[in-house]
């Protein structure tokens, strides 16, 4: 595996916490690998686990799902549903053979720019070590 291979990570972030956390990482000039591409949704409760499969199908090497810390949801309960959904969906994806490290779920608040940076750095390192994802991936 070439060392400059850059994994492709699709990040689903809620608007109020995690997207803002990523913004904060930017305003604080906290550098991280250019692996992640963010899709902004209002709330982690909007993230359908099927979107994750779709990302892997289309060629993502990793998927990040991020929302407000439980208890801090802008909509009060969205991340609680997300937590349940992803607890079972992630187990199921692993059951189908997806490598666990390719899907990460984190609670990142608007003030946690540094956490966002760390999450991306760690995730990128792990996925880089694994190489490109081939499972569930379509060939174009």
């Amino acid at each position, binding site marked *: 595996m070439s060392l400059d291979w*850059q994994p492709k990570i699709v990040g689903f972030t809620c*608007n109020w916490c995690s*997207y803002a956390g*990523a913004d904060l*990482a930017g305003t604080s000039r906290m550098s991280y690998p*250019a692996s992640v*591409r963010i899709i902004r949704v209002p709330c982690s409760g909007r993230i359908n686990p099927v*979107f994750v499969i*779709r990302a892997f199908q289309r060629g993502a090497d990793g998927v990040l799902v991020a929302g407000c810390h439980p208890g801090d949801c802008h909509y009060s309960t969205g991340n609680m549903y997300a937590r349940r959904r992803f607890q079972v969906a992630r187990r199921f994806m692993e059951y189908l053979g997806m490598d666990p490290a390719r899907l990460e779920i984190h609670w990142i608040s608007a003030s946690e720019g540094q956490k966002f940076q760390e999450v991306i750095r760690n995730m990128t390192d792990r996925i880089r070590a694994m190489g490109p994802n081939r499972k569930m991936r379509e060939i174009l």
Partner: protein
Amino acid sequence: MIRIGVFVCWCGSNIAGTVDVGKVAEESAKMPGVVHVEQNKYTCSDPGQDSIRKAIKEHRLDRVVVAACSPRMHEMTFRKCAASAGLNQYLVEMANIREHCSWVHSDMSVATPKAVDIVRRAVAKVKRSVPLFPSTIPVEKRALVIGGGIAGIQAALDIAEAGYEVTIVEREPTIGGRMAQLDKTFPTLDCSSCILTPKMVDAASHPGIRILTCSEVEDISGYVGNFQVRLRKRARSIDEARCTACGICISKCPTSRDSEFNMGLGTRKAIYMPFPQAVPNKPTIDREICRHFTEGKCGICQKVCPSGAVDFSQEDQVLNEKFGAVVAATGATQFSVEAYGEYGYGRYPDVITGLELERLISSTGPTDGKIRRPSDGRIPRTVVFIKCVGSRDENKGYPYCSKACCMYTAKHAILLKEKIPGASAYVFYMDVRAGGKDYEEFYQRSQEIGTRYVRGRVSRIYPLDGKLIVQGEDTLLGQRVEVEADLVVLAAAMVPQIDAPEMARKLGISYNQYGFFSEAHPKLRPVETNTAGVFLAGTCQGPKDIPETVAQASAAAVKVISLFAKSELTTNPNVASVDESLCSGCLWCMNVCPYKAIEEKIITERAGKETVTRSVASVNTGLCQGCGACTVACRDGAMNLLGFTNEQILAEVEALCL
């Protein structure tokens, strides 16, 4: 035909320093649907915005992508800009190539292709954007305040002062709430009634305030600006208009029971006023014990009433009214201290709660302000106070801190010394929490006058020769402590009203594991709830003292006032939307909605030759806040979130993975 314009911003060197903007523009031009691309030094500047407006017109753009900073920064700016050029503002999408790209990368060869991907995502999304139109909803400029304690009174006065009508609904026969039961208030020791009763009178006499006592909220439907509320005004059996509050009826009434206002330490009649300063100052007949109602006899009050105000035939009234905002100020109640068997409350009459002591100290109380033991009426010389009864105790009570008890116990100790010179006070405590203006000083004062603070829990109380032996441990000294007390006062925790969850359900708001109502955000939206138009004041949201309660009540009032200051409300059009042809009507979406914004709707349609009715989900766009939790709960794919549709998100995923 879709005609997208992409505007790539340099942001001076903020973007252009790390991203090859020219290359991004070049790649953007190749994306399907893109017909115009330009670069700007500062797109958010006046000339930058002008160029967008100009391009929209010249190139007949029907979608715009601004590749610049975070949408949290300038999305509104560019939406307004597009709107001023006649484009629906929801056809603008931002590509965040600054915070998410140029500012976190230093290598242009890495940042540039990433920026292109980010633009591609925005193009793919905006292609599937549709014009959205915020709708406006009228605002009924009347506020409903539920609860007539100090929180409700303060909120009502502030709202009414701003010129809006307010209705206070109080289930007791008088407003005043818990504060009316208190004798003095910390840390100033001014008389509770002296500061409360004028406010009660102000409320009663304010032309903008209507007070409904003996009344409760039965049902609330609707949404911000337009709540439909059903109220039940229980029969008082008194014609309030005729009654002159002379009190003859009360003095002649033959039936009595324990006084709720005096915490059971005294009695009241079947026809009664909870306390002399009650507002409205009219008696009420307690039909549970009144002999006219229980036995069909008596009727003395009616006979003696000089103005013919007693009306046994009065019935409950149901009022259906419309309000634009609701302030929940339903208060709290006192922890049932019976849970602590070792303290003997209920078995030993001289073990009382803090609120009972307030009544014993109060000059309007059963002892006319003389502190006397309930058992024999003797003046106690040694009083033991036990703090954290029901609070900070997961086993028998609640884990939270009840917040006001440290200070009211300090107050009690001070008042004890004042009323009974030479009396000694012991306070068993876990910690002393005196955060607040002048609070620590107040606590120090209680120590200075000789109150003995013992750090530790009381393990047992038992009676001996007319005394109560209080056994405990001083954990600081590591030794057992035994006090011969005349009176024991338990600082019972503030706990939510028993029916708080029921009220929360009526209001469509959430509550925490104890039953305190949940604010929309613990720091930034402390008086809002997750239901627009419903605000919180006072101890229904969590334990508070009076200053905090009043502050929150005024804050809630300001929220109501700013809501009413608008002639109509503009709703966020990024709301959930149902494709009725796909909806199977399972309504699982209804369960996950935190705003009660989804309801059942019956539709009629043709199916072959038959006309059938079936139920589908329907979104109340006034209530929906656009979180989208329902969309994932919907297996049919019938529920979508405008502005973040399934189509858009799937297209974004695809664009990013290409």
